[in-house]
């Protein structure tokens, strides 16, 4: 025993479905087409009545921002819509026109209830005019039925278009939300790694401070000399901790966009002269040669933040000293007038850095592989900070192999001061 399946037209479109539901037939189309010449003259007034409602709409000021010109344009659009009502063609194209209205409205966040109430105004106005046009009862009935049906059809089309547009809008919002939540999760993972790394790095020197202090307190050192040696370890761990905290504060204020640079015209000679003596002490204690080739050069004025320029220079120089067991460090300056920058180079005869590690060296907490081997410790933030500072001063930074592939060559650039000033200095 088979149950008859109710047949529904195959892939019936929404407008077909609505027409069937409203018993909107060919006859109604003919009647409406016949109405057009009689009703056309009322369309401008219909538009007036429709937009007279606008001031009462709570969102009007937000939606109708184009002033009188926009309202005029909308009125003529509405008249065209009215023409369509009586055109006698109610096909897919007709439905598409009505759907577009809903999409536009959703885009400008015009409420559906406003359209429904406006359609009510239109309906009572048009029916009132129809009754004026057709005093005979039978005629009036047939026409008003056809008009009511087409207005119902439009209302349904528009409500459906609102629904579809809202769904599409929600889908877009959902995708945006999903994307944002993915980005958030990614940022969170990076933050977590950072935090784990930071807490490990803070704990290591802190741990040494505590353990060596306890050794001394417990009286476990065998001589005053050994006690001194242990205290030196405590002191250097404290220094490392301080450097790490300073670097962390720097990098977090850079990343939060809170580090304000004071970019001004400055003489690189002054920065070099005040920085090199600091490194010279470190270099001398390790028997390293420190050669300043810039001494014989006339250096042009540059634009940068003096404190940060010095910090970058000091970072790169300290790194060079750290990773050079023997030999020396050379400081060089190259002025590129055509590109408008000064390039500072720091070349060492140290252990070098493999080509594949040169780019990642500027990332946070990427340390030199062989650093631990030599008992070299640092915050792992020095190069990351230097890169960000150089970029904030509109320069570039990089690492290369040193001469003959030995050691490494660190360089950075700073923009030259405007040429007008340059020539003034030369004249002076």
């Amino acid at each position, binding site marked *: 025993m088979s149950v008859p399946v109710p047949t529904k037209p195959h892939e019936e479109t929404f407008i077909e479905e609505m027409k069937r539901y409203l018993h909107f037939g060919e006859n109604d189309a003919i009647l409406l087409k016949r109405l057009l010449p009689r009703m056309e003259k009322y369309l401008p007034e219909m538009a007036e009545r429709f937009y007279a409602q606008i001031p009462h709409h709570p969102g009007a000021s937000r939606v109708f921002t184009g002033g009188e010109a926009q309202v005029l344009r909308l009125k003529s659009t509405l008249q065209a819509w009215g023409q369509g009502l009586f055109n006698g063609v109610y096909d897919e194209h007709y439905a598409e026109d009505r759907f577009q209205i809903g999409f536009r409205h959703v885009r400008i966040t015009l409420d559906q209830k406003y359209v429904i109430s406006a359609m009510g105004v239109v309906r009572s106005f048009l029916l009132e005019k129809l009754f004026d046009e057709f005093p005979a009862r039978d005629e009036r009935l047939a026409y008003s039925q056809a008009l009511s049906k087409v207005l119902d059809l439009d209302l349904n089309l528009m409500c459906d278009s609102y629904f579809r547009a809202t769904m599409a809008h929600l889908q877009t919002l959902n995708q945006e939300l999903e994307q944002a939540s993915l980005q958030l999760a990614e940022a969170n993972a990076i933050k977590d790694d950072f935090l784990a790394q930071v807490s490990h790095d803070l*704990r*290591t020197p*802190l*741990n040494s401070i505590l*353990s060596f202090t306890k050794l001394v307190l*417990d009286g476990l050192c065998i001589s005053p000399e050994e006690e001194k040696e242990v205290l030196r*370890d405590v002191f250097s761990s404290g220094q490392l901790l301080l450097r790490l905290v300073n670097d962390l504060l720097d990098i977090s204020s850079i990343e939060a966009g809170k580090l304000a640079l004071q970019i001004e015209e400055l003489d690189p000679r002054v920065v070099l002269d005040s920085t090199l003596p600091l490194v010279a002490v470190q270099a001398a204690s390790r028997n390293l040669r420190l050669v300043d080739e810039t001494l014989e050069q006339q250096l042009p004025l540059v634009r940068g933040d003096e404190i940060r320029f010095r910090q970058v220079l000091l970072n790169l120089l300290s790194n060079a000293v750290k990773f050079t067991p023997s030999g020396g460090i050379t400081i060089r300056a190259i002025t590129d007038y055509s590109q408008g920058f000064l390039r500072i180079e720091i070349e060492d005869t140290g252990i070098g850095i493999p080509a594949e590690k040169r780019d990642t060296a500027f990332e946070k907490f990427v340390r030199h592989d062989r650093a*631990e081997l030599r008992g070299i410790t640092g915050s792992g933030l020095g190069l990351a900070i230097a890169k960000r500072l150089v970029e904030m001063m509109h320069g570039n930074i990089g690492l290369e192999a040193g001469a003959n592939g030995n050691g490494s060559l660190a360089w950075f650039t700073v923009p030259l001061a405007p040429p007008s000033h340059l020539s003034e200095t030369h004249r002076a």
Partner: protein
Amino acid sequence: MNHTASKGRKQRIIIIEDNNLVAKFFQMALERAGGYSCLVSEDVPAILREVGAGEVDLVLLDVSLTNAEWDGHRVNGVELCRILKEKSPRRLPVLLATAHAMSGDRERLLESSGADGYLEKPIYDSAQLIAQVRKLMA
């Protein structure tokens, strides 16, 4: 004191730790407060020679190592622990030290390494360190 072997020699501990300050603390604490004899090293073949000769009583082993190599590969503490256990002619207690103080890490590391105990860094009290070492050597 029971930490000195009956034949009179000091009990020997090998410290495998890549941070020189941490290693220095372990060594001083174990030697001065515990009376042990210590060797700090990351040289795996040399360590295995001592272990193979049965001259090592305990290994204090860091999980993350920088320079330990075996068979041409870099090895971490977990892998090195298994090698040590395999090459030792007698029971060799291994105390695994790590700073990864996260829940679940302990069981996972003990199981995968076959170590006998777990030392959670930071440890900065010599008495605490020696208590752990004694427990494993008993």
